[in-house]
C-alpha cells in the first residue's frame, strides 16, 4: 500500500490584515480622480463595451466632415477653407446636442439614481469639488469633441499651403469659441440632468432644451428679419444657447453670423457675452444648490 504523500506542494498563507502606511493624497487628488473618471466615462472608457458605442460614433461623425473638407481643399488647391473655424460647431450642433444629452445624465443622474452621492461626500472631497469635477469633466469631453475637427481643419489647411497667419488666427478663434460653447453646453445640460435620477428624462429634456429653443429662435429671427426688424432679429438670439454663442463669436471673434442677424451693435455683443458667462455661472450656482440637498439624503 503506497504511503500517502504528506507533503504540501502549495500552501495559502493567510497573511492577515495589513495596515496601509503609504501616502494619502487628500482632497485635491480625490477631486482629480473624480474628474478623470468622469471625463473617461463620457467616452465610455472604464465602462462597459456597450457604453463606448454612442460617444465613439458621435466622435467619428463630428470629425469626418473636417476630414472631407480638408481632402477636398488639398485636392482642389483651394485658396481658402470652404468654412470658418467658428462655423463648424454651429453646422454640427445636432451632433453636439446628442453627445451632451447622452453624457450629462451619465455623469450625474447615475450617481443620484444609485445614491452614491453620500459615499462621495464621505470622502475627503467637498461639495464644490464634486460639482467642479463633473462640470470640468463634461466641458473637457465636449472640448475633445469640438477641438479634434478644428485641429484636422488646421493641419489640413497648412498642408494645403494656405496662408499660415490667417489660418492660425481662425483656428485660435475657433478654440475660444469651442471653449465657450463647451462651458455653456456642459453647464446647462448638467443642471437639467442633476434634477432627475432618471436617465431617460434627462436625455429627452436636454435634447428638447437645445433643439426646441434653437428651432423657435431661428424661425422667429427669420420672420423678424424678413419684416425688416433687423435689431429684433439680432436680440432674439439671446433666447437659445447656440445663437448666444453665435452672437458672441460674430461680435468678438469676427465670425459671420449663422442666423440672419448677429447682435445689433457693440453694446449688444457685450450683452451676449455677459449672458453667456452669466448662464455658465448660474448653472454652477444651481448645481451647488442642488447638491447641498442630495448630499444629505
Amino acid at each position, binding site marked *: 500500500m503506497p504511503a500517502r504523500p504528506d507533503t504540501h506542494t502549495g500552501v495559502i498563507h493567510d497573511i492577515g490584515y495589513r495596515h496601509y502606511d503609504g501616502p494619502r*493624497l487628500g*482632497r485635491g487628488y480625490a477631486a482629480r480622480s473624480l474628474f478623470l473618471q468622469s471625463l473617461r466615462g463620457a467616452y465610455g472608457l472604464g465602462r462597459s463595451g456597450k457604453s463606448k458605442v454612442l460617444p465613439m460614433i458621435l466622435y467619428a461623425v463630428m470629425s469626418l466632415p473636417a476630414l472631407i473638407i480638408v481632402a477636398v481643399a488639398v485636392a482642389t488647391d483651394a485658396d481658402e477653407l470652404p468654412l470658418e473655424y467658428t462655423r463648424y460647431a454651429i453646422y454640427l450642433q445636432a451632433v453636439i446636442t446628442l453627445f451632451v444629452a447622452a453624457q450629462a445624465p451619465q455623469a450625474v443622474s447615475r450617481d443620484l439614481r444609485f445614491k452614491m452621492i453620500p459615499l462621495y461626500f*464621505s470622502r475627503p472631497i467637498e461639495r464644490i469639488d464634486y460639482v467642479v469635477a463633473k462640470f470640468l469633466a463634461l466641458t473637457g469631453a465636449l472640448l475633445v469633441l469640438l477641438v479634434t475637427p478644428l485641429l484636422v481643419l488646421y493641419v489640413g489647411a497648412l498642408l494645403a499651403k494656405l496662408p499660415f497667419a490667417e489660418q492660425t488666427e481662425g483656428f485660435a478663434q475657433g478654440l475660444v469659441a469651442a471653449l465657450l460653447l463647451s462651458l455653456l453646453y456642459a453647464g446647462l445640460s448638467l443642471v437639467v440632468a442633476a434634477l432627475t435620477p432618471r436617465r431617460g428624462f434627462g436625455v429627452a429634456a436636454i435634447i428638447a432644451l437645445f433643439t426646441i429653443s434653437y428651432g423657435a429662435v431661428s424661425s422667429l429671427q427669420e420672420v423678424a428679419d424678413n419684416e425688416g426688424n433687423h435689431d429684433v432679429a439680432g436680440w432674439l438670439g439671446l433666447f437659445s444657447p447656440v445663437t448666444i454663442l453665435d452672437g458672441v463669436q460674430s461680435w468678438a471673434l469676427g465670425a459671420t453670423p449663422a442666423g440672419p442677424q448677429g447682435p445689433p451693435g457693440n453694446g449688444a455683443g457685450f450683452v451676449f457675452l455677459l449672458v453667456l458667462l452669466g448662464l455658465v455661472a448660474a448653472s454652477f450656482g444651481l448645481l451647488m444648490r442642488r447638491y447641498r440637498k442630495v448630499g444629505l439624503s
Partner: protein
Amino acid sequence: MTALDRLTLDIEPGVVGLVGSNGAGKSTLIKILLGLLAASEGRASVLGLDVVRDGSKIRERVGYMPEHECLPPDVSATEFVLHMARMSGLPTAAARERTADTLRHVGLYEERYRPIGGYSTGMKQRVKLAQALVHDPQLVLLDEPTNGLDPVGRDEMLDLIRRVHTDFGISVLVTSHLLGELERTCDHVVVIDGGTLLRSQSTAEFTQATQTMAVEVTDSERHPDGAAAVCAALVGSGVAVTADGRLLLVDVSDESTYDTVRDAVAGLGLGLVRMEQRRHGIVELFRPQTPDAQPVPFRGQHEKEGSRGSASTP
C-alpha cells in the same frame, strides 16, 4: 425639527453600538461626525479633529457605510471599490492592492469581477463594508449594516464587524435598532431616543445590570409542579426569581448563578428543558431608567477618538 438635542457623549476606541428606534437621530449623529451636516449648536470632534474645521481630514481617516443601497449595478466590486479607494486619496497602485486585500477580508472572492447588479443582499453589504475599509481608516461608521439580511447573514456580518476591531485594529461605531444584536458585538452601547441620550455604558455593565435568564424544567412524580419546586429552591439559595407560568425568570447577578440553577434542578431530580439568555428589546430601555429624561452625560477617561457631540439640528 430637532433631530439631536443636547446629546453629550465621549466614545472610546473599540466597538461601540449606537442603538435607537427609527428616527432616533442615529444617522443624523453620523452625518455630523462626518462633517456632512452642520449642527446648529454645539460641537463634535472625531479622532481629535473638529468636524467643522477639519471635515476633509476626518473623512480621509474614517470609513462610512451608509444604511441604504449605494452601489452602481453596472460595475464590478473591484472597479467600484478601487474608485472609492482613489476617492479616499490612495495612489492607484496602492488602491489596487488594498482593493484586492479588502474584498478578500470581507469574504468576496471570484464574484468580485462580476457586475454588482447580480449580487445577493449579503454580498452587497460586504461590498459596502469593503468600500468603507479600503483606505484603512482608524474608525468606521456603520449605519445599520445588518439591515435586510437573513439570520445567517446577520450573524456573519456581526462576526465580520467584530473582526474589524479585533483583527484589523479599526474602531467601529455601529448603529442598529436591535439592542440584542449589538450586545453581542459591542464593547460599549449607547442608546439614544428622540435625539437625547438614554444610556451609555459598557456591554459588560449592561448585561450585569439587566440580564435575566429563562429556565424551564420538567415535572416528576415527586414534584408535580417542577417550576414551583425549583423556584422555592432558588429563593432558598438567595437567587431572585419570578415565575411566569411554567417559565422561571432568574436574575443573573454573576457567573455562579448558572451553577446555582443547575445544582438546584439536579438536586430535585428534574430535567432541564431550557436555560437561555433573554434578549432585551429596546422597549425595556424605555422603562424609566432615567425618569426625568435628562440627557445623561457620560465621560470616558481616554479620548482617542472622542466624538463629543452637543448637537441640535433644525
